[in-house]
């Protein structure tokens, strides 16, 4: 049994107003509390300049480590370098950054470690769900694929989808508009409704970035009020957060593929604890092996299995219990 | 559009003029050669040729719409001729912008003040000409000040070079504009109505400056409506009428009557002999010309207070009730008014005389509620009143025709009709309880007023900013006639309008008084006050220093009071 020193962790949030960000941050705080750590946070507000200012603030606080949930290193490179120079370990959690790689960056990497969700696998599983649904529809099936190339996880999700659809000759991607990050909802409504008019045979609207799904939902509702698949197109997206859950239970969103992205936060806390207590380096793997358990098992959430009360789906593997027990075994806890 | 200047590729204008001009031999003659210009359907200039020499003072005269402005604009590079050339020392040049003109030595000082109020005098003088630099980048402030002081000295202006331009009076600002021309090494100054709203003293100073510049070899084109000025100052007079130069004579060969005759054209000579009164309605836009005594001109049946030229000489006992009394008022913009008192009666025309800056405008603005006095009282029909805003003044029956017609009098973005009905709009309601004007009735009222005042425009829809100054002034007056008021205040009503429009204006003022209204008139042209007012209050340095009535109302008495002479006839008011 070793003791874990009382640490202070700086936490840079991407956008505090975002539901996923809240999930990750709250989980991190919950995990840190088990170890008796203090978390100092700063809200990046989704804006690079605010994120940079946050980095400076956090660094001047001399934390034992700085964690962020989902900010690509290019946005805050200067701050990361400054922290590195000050000897502060840097950890990234959230979506995949480099396509097909096991480390978070294929090239220069300013982060000391990164723990991410399997976005490519999520794309594959959601695409398989789509293929299964479309099997009963005859003829060529059109897909509108709203992409989000700004984020690497957006690119990776589409790579997964395309790997599945390329084997389906009768499913065709007819349009790939990009989500406009300055005008997520209203812009998506405009774009999707114009494209639905143009491609009346559309059977699938694929929303890569879940932040725009309510815009697409409005467009489909306006055009196909009261109709369901196969008369109306399927609307599929990522992550079953409460708003998406509500849209699923209303039948507006057909399916959302989900993983427990909060598990990233627990893994990050565990890796940091090992590093502080035992001076062992953090795992270079984006999803380290914990006795073969898969914390990131994907689930396709539909009307059939949407959680009651629009909660976030329960984890197939309970990482909270697992890590709490693990730490009680390994460390002298306060 | 044929551009004959392009045939000759000489183009002397350069950028970086200040440096450039110094290297060139100073130009001697500037000539317009067959300039023509039309705007849409109207010919503004037809084949105009005239030569101006450095060191010579030339008067450029003509009625509104005679083409003076267009000629100035072309010489100054603000607009381009359809045909014709500009010659400098006999060589054709191309003047495509005011910048080009300045580089050639032609500086135009416009009627409107064109200084940046927040910048210092020095910065204004050198604006766009290039400031002296330190280390290639920073403005050399001391050198700038010295160079400016030198030029200010030449125009006889005694202000600090680093004073804010906005803090200066109108006359001083105009001199700064002239200084700007000198800073650019101008050889020909074109002064457009430079003495407008100047006092006689200021005019004298301006003339001195122009003369001393002429001695230095700087020529001046002096544009003015004031015949006296032209006769006193210039060596030669160029007369324009209907877009053409109709005459050009040595000033010494002219007298007042001859010059007025030339300006107005022979046919109207007799009428103009009695300048100012009983004139016909004659257009101030060259488009349409109405005959004397035509329908539009007829004063709608109301009797005129006085038939012609003579001053309104009525026995003092005839005047009506006291309409407005002002007692020891102090305040106003910049606290310009120190202690002003006056009384005006129904049916009376009261003049306010005074030099610019004596607080005349500031006083009437307080009467109209624009600013609040901090001392003294305003008594309206025997009751002491507080006038908190122009709106309150209007409700109490006071109307003001402000000095600055384009910025304060008329709404340039509105049509003639909408301007006329603006203060009285609520009287055109379809139903008294609903703020909904009956447009037909409103339109008819506007048309009737246009006819009564003889506004030359095709209809109430005409935009006011397309009208001449005189017609704009009529519209501003007309809006108060439609609203009706008990006290009418006219601040410099004749500024920038031609002789006929002036005559019309004062006839209208006389009619107002005859119908029992109290009228206050401010004017810098004391002859106007002498001619038209029953009584005159003179202001000096914020105080009402004297009152002249009946036979005492004369230009010389007013001047004497203005300059603080110990005149036995003056007596304190109130």
């Amino acid at each position: 049994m070793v003791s874990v020193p009382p640490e202070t962790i700086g936490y840079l949030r991407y956008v505090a107003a975002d539901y996923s960000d809240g999930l990750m941050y709250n989980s991190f705080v919950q995990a840190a509390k088990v170890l008796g750590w203090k978390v100092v946070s700063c809200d990046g507000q989704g804006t690079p300049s605010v994120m940079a200012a946050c980095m400076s603030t956090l660094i001047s606080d001399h934390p034992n480590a700085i964690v962020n949930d989902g900010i690509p290193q290019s946005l805050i490179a200067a701050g990361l370098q400054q922290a590195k120079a000050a000897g502060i370990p840097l950890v990234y959690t959230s979506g995949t950054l480099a396509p097909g790689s096991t480390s978070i960056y294929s090239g220069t990497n300013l982060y000391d470690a990164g723990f991410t969700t399997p976005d490519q696998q999520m794309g594959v599983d959601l695409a398989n769900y789509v293929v299964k649904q479309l099997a009963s529809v005859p003829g060529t099936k059109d897909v509108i694929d709203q992409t989000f190339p700004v984020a690497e996880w957006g690119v990776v999700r589409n790579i997964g989808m395309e790997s599945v659809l390329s084997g389906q000759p009768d499913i065709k991607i007819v349009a790939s508009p990009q989500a406009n990050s300055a005008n997520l909802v209203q812009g998506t409504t405009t774009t999707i409704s114009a494209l639905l008019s143009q491609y009346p045979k559309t059977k699938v609207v694929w929303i890569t970035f879940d932040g725009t799904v309510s815009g697409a939902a409005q467009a489909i509702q306006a055009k196909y009020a009261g109709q369901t698949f196969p008369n109306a197109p399927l609307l599929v997206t990522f992550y079953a957060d409460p708003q998406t859950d509500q849209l699923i239970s209303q039948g507006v969103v057909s399916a959302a593929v989900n993983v427990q992205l909060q598990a990233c936060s627990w893994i990050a806390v565990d890796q940091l604890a090992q590093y502080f207590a035992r001076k062992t380096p953090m795992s270079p793997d984006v999803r380290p092996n914990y006795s073969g358990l898969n914390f990131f098992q994907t689930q396709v959430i539909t009307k059939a299995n949407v959680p009651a009360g629009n909660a976030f789906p329960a984890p197939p593997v309970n990482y909270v219990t697992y890590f709490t027990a693990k730490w009680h075994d390994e460390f002298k806890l306060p | 559009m044929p551009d004959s200047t392009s045939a000759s590729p000489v183009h002397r204008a350069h950028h970086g003029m200040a440096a450039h001009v110094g290297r060139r031999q100073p130009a001697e003659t500037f000539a317009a050669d067959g300039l023509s210009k039309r705007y849409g359907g109207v010919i503004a200039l037809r084949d105009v040729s005239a030569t101006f020499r450095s060191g010579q003072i030339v008067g450029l005269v003509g009625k509104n719409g005679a083409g003076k402005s267009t000629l100035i604009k072309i010489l100054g590079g603000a607009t381009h001729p359809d045909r014709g050339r500009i010659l400098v020392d006999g060589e054709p040049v191309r003047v495509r912008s005011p910048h080009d003109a300045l580089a050639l030595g032609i500086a135009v000082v416009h009627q409107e003040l064109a200084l940046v109020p927040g910048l210092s005098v020095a910065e204004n003088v050198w604006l766009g000409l290039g400031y002296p630099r330190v280390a290639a980048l920073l403005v050399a402030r001391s050198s700038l000040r010295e160079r400016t002081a030198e030029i200010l000295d030449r125009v006889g202006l005694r202000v600090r070079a680093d004073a804010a331009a906005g803090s200066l009076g109108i006359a001083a600002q105009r001199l700064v504009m002239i200084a700007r021309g000198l800073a650019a090494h101008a050889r020909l100054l074109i002064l457009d109505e430079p003495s407008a709203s100047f006092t006689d003293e200021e005019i004298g100073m301006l003339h001195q400056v122009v003369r001393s510049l002429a001695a230095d070899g700087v020529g001046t084109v002096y544009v003015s409506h004031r015949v006296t000025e032209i006769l006193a100052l210039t060596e030669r007079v160029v007369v324009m009428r209907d877009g053409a130069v109709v005459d050009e004579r040595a000033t010494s060969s002219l007298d007042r009557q001859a010059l007025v005759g030339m300006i107005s054209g022979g046919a109207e000579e007799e009428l103009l002999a009695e300048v100012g009164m009983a004139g016909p309605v004659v257009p101030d836009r060259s488009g349409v010309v109405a005959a004397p005594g035509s329908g539009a001109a007829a004063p709608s049946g109301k009797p005129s207070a006085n038939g012609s030229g003579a001053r309104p000489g009525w026995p003092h006992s005839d005047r009506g009730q006291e309409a407005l009394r002002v007692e020891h008022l102090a305040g106003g913009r910049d606290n310009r008014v120190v202690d002003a008192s006056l009384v005006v009666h129904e049916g009376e025309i009261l003049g306010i005389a005074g030099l610019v800056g004596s607080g005349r405008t500031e006083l009437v603005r307080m009467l109209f509620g624009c600013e609040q006095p901090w001392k003294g009282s305003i008594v309206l029909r025997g009751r002491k009143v507080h006038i908190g805003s122009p709106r309150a003044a209007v409700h109490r029956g006071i109307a003001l025709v402000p000095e600055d017609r384009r910025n304060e009098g008329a709404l340039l973005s509105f049509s003639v009709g909408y301007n006329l009905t603006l203060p009285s709009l609520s009287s055109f309601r379809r139903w008294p309880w609903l703020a909904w004007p009956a447009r037909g009735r409103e339109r008819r009222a506007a048309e009737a007023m246009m006819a009564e005042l003889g506004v030359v425009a095709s209809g109430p829809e005409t935009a006011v900013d397309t009208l001449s100054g005189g017609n704009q002034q009529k519209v501003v007056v007309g809006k108060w006639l439609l609203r009706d008021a008990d006290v009418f205040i006219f601040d410099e009503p004749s500024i920038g309008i031609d002789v006929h429009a002036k005559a019309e204006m004062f006839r209208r003022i006389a009619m107002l008084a005859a119908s029992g209204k109290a009228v206050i008139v401010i004017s810098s042209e004391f002859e106007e006050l002498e001619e038209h007012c029953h009584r005159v209050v003179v202001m000096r340095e914020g105080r009402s220093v004297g009152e002249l009535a009946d036979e005492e109302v004369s230009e010389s008495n007013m001047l004497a009071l203005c300059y603080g002479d110990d005149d036995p006839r003056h007596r304190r008011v109130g």
Partner: protein
Amino acid sequence: MVDGSSSVATGPSGPEAHGGRSDAEAVLAGAGRSTGSPSPGGRPPATRQGARLRLYHIMAHYGLLIALIVAVAGFSLARPSSFWTVGNLQDILTQSAAPAILAIGLTVVLVVGDFDLSIGSMLGLGGSAAVAMMSLHGTDWEVALIVALVVGLIAGVVNGLLIAYFKMSSFIVTLAMGTILLGVNFLVAGNQTLFSNIAPVYLDFGRLRTVGNINLQVFIALGVAIVAWVFLERTETGRYMYAVGGNSNAARLSGLAVQRYRLAGFVLAAIAAVVAGVLVTAQGGAAIPNLGAPYLLPAYAAAFLGTAGFSEGAFNVAGTVVGVIFLSVIAAGLTMFGISTGWIDIVQGAILISAILVSDVGRRMVAAAVRPTAGAG
């Protein structure tokens, strides 16, 4: 035109100032910018030289409408089976409704000669406040609406007081107010997306299909437009507002209560923003944080586009509404051509610049033609 101008040189021989109107004058009167509102009696010019002016006259009054018709016709010909469909046209109108209401409110402020940068945040806060009342505090939808409108009223009054009565810069005050309202929005919504417990009646405001299967929003926007048009063009208050915007100094010296009209402008803009916010959240069924930001600049674009139509350079409701629809048509049409978002933004910006350019250049051309001698010497 030479004939028309020949009367210029003649002496005082015309029969009568009004009767003896020359062709030139008719041209000038017809084409002159008359007022802030459409000139009813604008006489079409009748001469050869006037042809150019008449063309401008038509462009100035109907240019934007013509551009809209051309755009619709062009997209319809290019994509007949998808653009020129009832469904697509309904979509375009539905998507234009809330932006139109916002832009109409903005038009009132612009008419009075002010500027309001807080309307985007006001839209967001209006929608969020209403949804938060139902979602977080469980009130009825009527209460939620009233609360949202009161919030708008307060923000508008504060803007108006600071700007009209305390003479602060409208640019700075409304910029600051926009930031404040955004902050209030975050607090009111607890920094999260609100979507639960929204009353069905509330959602109907944004979703209900009415006559001809047209979304209720479209009729609400139409109603707002008609009321605003009548208000600005036909009532005394509207005339006074145009007067204040034309020259507040001259308006004041004509006895108008200038400050009151400026205050009213900000209040009306804020209320319109709240109504737009309610429709946006009703349609989306959720209030997301910073909802209003994407709506601010398009509202300005539409209002300025509107100056190129109906009223020759003046802000006006009809022009603004056509401007909003025009921008929606362009966005929808270009999307159907598979043109990416970036290019749609570029095209919309370019259209705005060209519209203002054409209308300004044209107006200067006419101004040069109608002002031959004014202000001479």
